[in-house]
């Protein structure tokens, strides 16, 4: 077992070394990025286009997970973990539950879309948005800095309990309120 692990390790290390020697670590990083981005984007497209809403929900989870991986890619390990837990777990389950509760009929056509006119209009709006935002992203002269190494979880914890302690508490209260609100909304005030 140990041998196997060390083999993989050496393979990976060796591969990395080889890649670095080939002068192409950027290429590999780019490949990983495109792979993850592809997962996220394609699942997102699936969310929008699937006819079965349960499929949509599953693909949404996939997209969330893709994004979570991208967080890790960005040296934000803790954020990635939170993404997996909150979105990939809780939110996805919540949505699926909601779907189950508000659907009775045929699941195959449970995610109806609007007519062509609306689709074209929506495409124009979304396309226009993509265009302007893309241009803004491409044309903006950002000054990039090298990654600052550090423990992301520790750094966040530090910030959260010092500089941003008030927003942190507010967010906690917000969550509490949201929870109570959701319960009351779902159950009805008179019953609760």
């Amino acid at each position, binding site marked *: 077992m140990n041998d196997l692990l060390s083999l993989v390790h050496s393979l990976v290390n060796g591969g990395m070394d080889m890649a670095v020697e080939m002068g192409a670590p950027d290429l590999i990083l780019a490949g990983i990025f495109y792979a993850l981005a592809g997962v996220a984007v394609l699942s997102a497209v699936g969310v929008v286009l699937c006819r079965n809403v349960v499929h949509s929900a599953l693909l949404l989870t996939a997209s969330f997970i893709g994004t979570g991986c991208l967080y890790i890619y960005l040296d934000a390990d803790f954020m990635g973990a939170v993404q997996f837990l909150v979105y990939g777990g809780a939110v996805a389950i919540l949505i699926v539950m909601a779907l189950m509760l508000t659907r009775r009929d045929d699941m195959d056509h449970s995610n109806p879309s609007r007519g062509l006119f609306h689709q074209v209009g929506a495409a124009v709006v979304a396309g*226009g948005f993509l265009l*302007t935002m893309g241009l803004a992203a491409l044309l*903006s002269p950002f000054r990039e800095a090298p990654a600052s190494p550090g423990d992301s979880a520790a750094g966040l914890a530090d910030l959260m309990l010092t500089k941003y302690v008030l927003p942190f508490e507010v967010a906690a209260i917000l969550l509490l309120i949201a929870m109570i609100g959701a319960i009351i909304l779902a159950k009805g005030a008179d019953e609760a």
Partner: protein
Amino acid sequence: MFDFALTHAWLIPLLPALAFLIIGLGTRRDKDASAKIAITFSGLSFLLALGVLGAVITRPIVMADPFVMKTLWAKVGDIELSMGVLVDPLTAMMLFVVTTVALLVQIYSVGYMAHDPGAGRFFAFLSLFAASMLGLVLSVNFMQMYAFWELVGLCSYLLIGFYYYKDSAREAAKKAFITTRIGDFGMLLGILLVQLTFGTMDFVELKTLLPTYIWETGGGILTIIALLLFIGPIGKSGQFPLHVWLPDAMEGPTPVSALIHAATMVVAGVYLVGRAYFLFSALPVVLEVIAWVGGFTAFFAATIAVTQRPFKRILAYSTISQLGYMMLALGVGSLTASMFHLMTHAFFKALLFLCAGAVIEAMHEEADIFKMGGLRERMPVTFRCMAIGVLAIAGVPPLAGFFSKDAILAAAAEVSLPLYLLATATAFLTAFYMARLLFVAFFGEVKPDCPAQETNAWMRWPLVILAALSVVSGAWGHFAGFGEWIFYGPVGEEHIDWLIAGTSVALTAVAFYLAYEIYVMKRWSAYEISRRLGVLYRLSYNKYYVDEFYTVIRNTFVDKLGAVLYWFDLHVVDGVVNGLARFTGGLSGVLGLAENGQVQRYVAVFYCGVIALTAYSLLIAAMLLAVVGGAF
């Protein structure tokens, strides 16, 4: 004691005002108490007026040097509006006349209003009127005069409309107020111009400023000012063409007619011209206008009076005519004659009206003289008083009217022959219509169902006193030197021009004879005569259609124009407003397509906005970069 009266002259108008307040706030439901209060305060004010008269005579206070007391009423900017008292012989005479007549009329009213439930209100208004009139007489400046001028107008309105439940009284009151208001408009303009030209409205100050002003700048603007001022008297003193309200004013209770529309208020206009005579007499053009307006009014009203049938309306036109006389006298330059006639006229006209009141009350509100007849026997005292009044107004010597009218005729003769002839013709007509009134109502057969009885003592005694005054006031004034007392410019010579006097007396005699033959002996049929005169008769009987003319004017220029403007307001001014509203509504309908209640539409619109904003900021950034160049 006279000094006390003089220094407390301000109490003279305040006492009746107090009576008004007490009655108005307290006792108006109690007839007797109200009458007592009104008469007491009027009596006090009469005594004070007598005191002032005494002070003026004994001190003596002369026209050139009046006694003045004033206090600040309001100050605006650097203009001081004051109220106060100005006492000179003219004022003293007016105070005496007004308080006398007012007191007598109030006493008379106790009897006259005995059965009217609104008597308390009546006495309140009478007191208010007396206060206003006395305040007007005592005015120290144009502003005060205008203020009280308006107040007497108000009282006149209230009293004409005293029987407010009668439509005719209501309309007459309104007409009186609005007609005189037109005059007030001119007067107000004149007063404002006086203030702007001289910087003061005070009579005494103006009197001293005026000669220098005329010397320096001439009389151009002053003529306009004076003519504007004169519009006020035209309205208030019932001069042509604003005389229309005065005959209608007879809708009020008869004592009111006697007090306000014969003896006192209507002479306010004459008094104003007299008070500001320093201004008017300096402007020959204006004097001429005044003289002709007066002369014409006198004749015009007399021709109407000849054909009228209601008792009081004859007297009303006679009043207009006599006021014309007074104006004429002022216009030909004789303040003395005018004021003299003002005084005598106040007495005998009040007498005549009170007699009319007695008669009409006795006849149970029947006013047409041709339905009376033979009242001589039923009401002997009233008849005698009435006869004295008629003789006095006709100018029969030695009664009051003879002296004062003669003074006017003499003054007119000195200035202009046409005016003299007009005045003399008026005198003839006056004698004729007054004789007609007397003969028709009091002579002849008693009509079978005539209810007339002699009046009660409350009403009788004032008649007697006024009759006595009508007899003696002329001679007293003439021989006691009225002309040396109230005058403007050089002292007028006191003499009687026997040619002029003889002519007018002769004409009076002829008029009486004619009236006697027509209406008592029935030698000529009055009907025949009127038929022969045709158009002239109809013109006179219908008062030259002046009222109808005004109705047309009012309908066209006031009501129709008002309706047109209202249409404009509704459809153009408001139309624009509503149009704007509709436009906005339409616009919102178009914009509302973006908001059909569906969330997704809102989202789409929202993102369109986001896109536009982003594109805009990109554009700005691109332009900035283009300017900055390769800075990045």
